[in-house]
């Protein structure tokens, strides 16, 4: 492999783009776990659901980039509503239950939603194509859509950070990550917070689906491949930490990109080697806090 500056540069860019895709997917997962202590196995399945919904809305109102953005917004709203309802009706009954039962419940969502998608949309893959032309920079071609993804990832990261840092709701959510009892003690309606966080997490999954659709078709089984990588990111970054998820996404994305050059078929094994190493060294992740139970 001829490693020159050009290659390192492009590999860095594609790595970061991959990272931002992972971040969009994992931010909601991390937030939900951080606040509610529920590991949502079905998070990527919700992404899939969001993708199919966006696809359907877009084929109704499309074509055009503006219409696509509208469809993505619609997808986010629908998923948020689903998330809110699901939390109130099902998840909220699980907080006092044992961990395996929670895992099993979200695992059963994977099966149920996967089949519901099949019932409604069938087995055909769905994709949206915008015929993007390559961009030539300094004699190398790059995919301009990568910059869209990177920009979106940064914007979401910044938005979430500002929301958590500067808004009242955000501060309550952060407090809930730290200690559930404290928030209830303050007399804040924790149930509403939980439902809202779940809704936000699912809306983020729909947003990720929107970023995903122009580059890869929505297809059954995609969720199974994605969720494992998403877990890797959340574990490395630390549950509940948006900054951690962001940094971990970068690590996983960039390491993966360079592993592909050196040991292509073992790239995912490398990612899980990192996960294992981190979990042994700091089980609460790079930016998670040790004291959380």
């Amino acid at each position, binding site marked *: 492999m001829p490693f020159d500056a050009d290659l390192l540069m492009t590999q860095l860019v594609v790595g970061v783009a991959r990272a931002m895709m992972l971040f969009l997917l994992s931010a909601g997962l991390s937030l939900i776990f951080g606040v509610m202590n529920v*590991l949502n196995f079905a998070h990527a399945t919700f992404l899939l659901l969001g993708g199919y919904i966006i696809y359907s809305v877009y084929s109704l109102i499309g074509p055009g980039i503006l219409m696509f953005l509208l469809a993505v917004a619609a997808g986010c709203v629908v998923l948020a509503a689903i998330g809110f309802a699901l939390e109130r009706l099902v998840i909220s009954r699980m907080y006092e239950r044992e961990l*395996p*039962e929670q895992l099993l*419940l979200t695992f*059963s969502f994977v099966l149920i939603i996967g089949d519901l998608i099949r019932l409604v949309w069938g087995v055909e893959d769905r994709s949206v194509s915008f015929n993007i032309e390559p961009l030539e920079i300094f004699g190398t071609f790059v995919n301009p859509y990568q910059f869209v993804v990177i920009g979106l990832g940064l914007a979401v990261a910044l938005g979430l950070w500002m929301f958590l840092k500067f808004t009242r709701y955000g501060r309550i959510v952060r407090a809930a990550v730290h200690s559930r009892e404290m928030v209830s003690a303050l007399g804040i309606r924790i149930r509403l917070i939980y439902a809202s966080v779940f809704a936000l997490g699912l809306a983020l999954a729909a947003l990720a689906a929107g970023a995903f659709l122009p580059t890869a078709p929505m297809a059954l089984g995609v969720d*199974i491949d994605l969720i*494992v990588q998403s877990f890797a990111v959340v574990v490395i970054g630390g549950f509940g930490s948006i900054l951690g998820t962001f940094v971990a996404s970068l690590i996983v994305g960039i390491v993966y990109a360079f592993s592909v050059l050196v040991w292509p078929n073992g790239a995912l094994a490398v990612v899980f*080697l990192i996960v294992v190493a981190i979990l042994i060294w700091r089980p609460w992740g790079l930016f998670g806090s040790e004291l959380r139970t």
Partner: protein
Amino acid sequence: MKFSRIGPASVFFAFMAIVPLAGSVFWTMIATEVLIMGLFAMSFNLIYGYMGQISFGHAAFFGIGAYATAMIGRTFGNDYGWFFLALAMSVPVAAIFAAIIGFFVIRRTGIYFAILTMAFGELMFFLVFSSYSVTGGDNGIQGLLPPPLLRAPSHYHYLVLCVVALCFVLLWRITQSPFGYTLRAIRDNAKRVRFIGVNVEFCMWVNFVVAGAFAGLAGGLWAPFTRSVAPTLLNWQESGIPVFMALIGGAYTFAGPLFGSLIYTLLHAWVTGVTQYWSLVIGLVMVFIVFLAPTGVVGSVLRQWRTPGISAPAEPKTPTVASPERG
């Protein structure tokens, strides 16, 4: 008193012994599957029901056992000697991997234990998957025929029945031993166990290895049963199956996972024959179980007629399992 604990299991094994007499190859094979998966689920339950930790990478040991048997079988053929050696080797090979992985995972509890086991499981999956020259990569290994006398489904069924029954007795002994009670104590309150003079990490490690070894044996039985192995045996979705079986049957009863395997396997066989939306049905059943029979089917039945104090491990009253020790 003792019979009331082993009674249902005796009925179960007696029933398993007469299934082939009905003459249906299909039901014989289903029964074999119930036994193998039941052993897998019981091995998982050593970690969950008795030690209080949830492993989401237990299929790794099942898969490693299956691969150990498959690779020895592929190399040396299927003489009776080699066949039984290959089968037996699934135990130490899985145990060695469990020992290495266990060394790292037992330091963590609760959700971290679950995720660390899952990460190790996925790591093993990707290693098997990408070591194309050794493991055959994605296509796995085929042609794992047992020696002629064991080829007939009913014969293989009786072999499996003997092995699983033996394991059942061994597992029963383990759970009724001082070690078994120490595990229950660790499950209830790991911190306290340290202060009665027990090396908690070491106990957990031993148990992890034992559980891995039994899972490996289940995998070893599985490989010649399906005549082939593939890396999907190791991945995290496969690890969900024993979790489901243990919960459906009742993780806090000794034979619960075995009955869980019976229920799950029959349900699966029935549903896949009726509708292609089998995962929807299974998913709904899972939700149903989680909400309406949280102590599992066997657990719920037992609760109806068993006096407290007799049941080996009792049903949970407080959600203590998930919380890590320090916090």
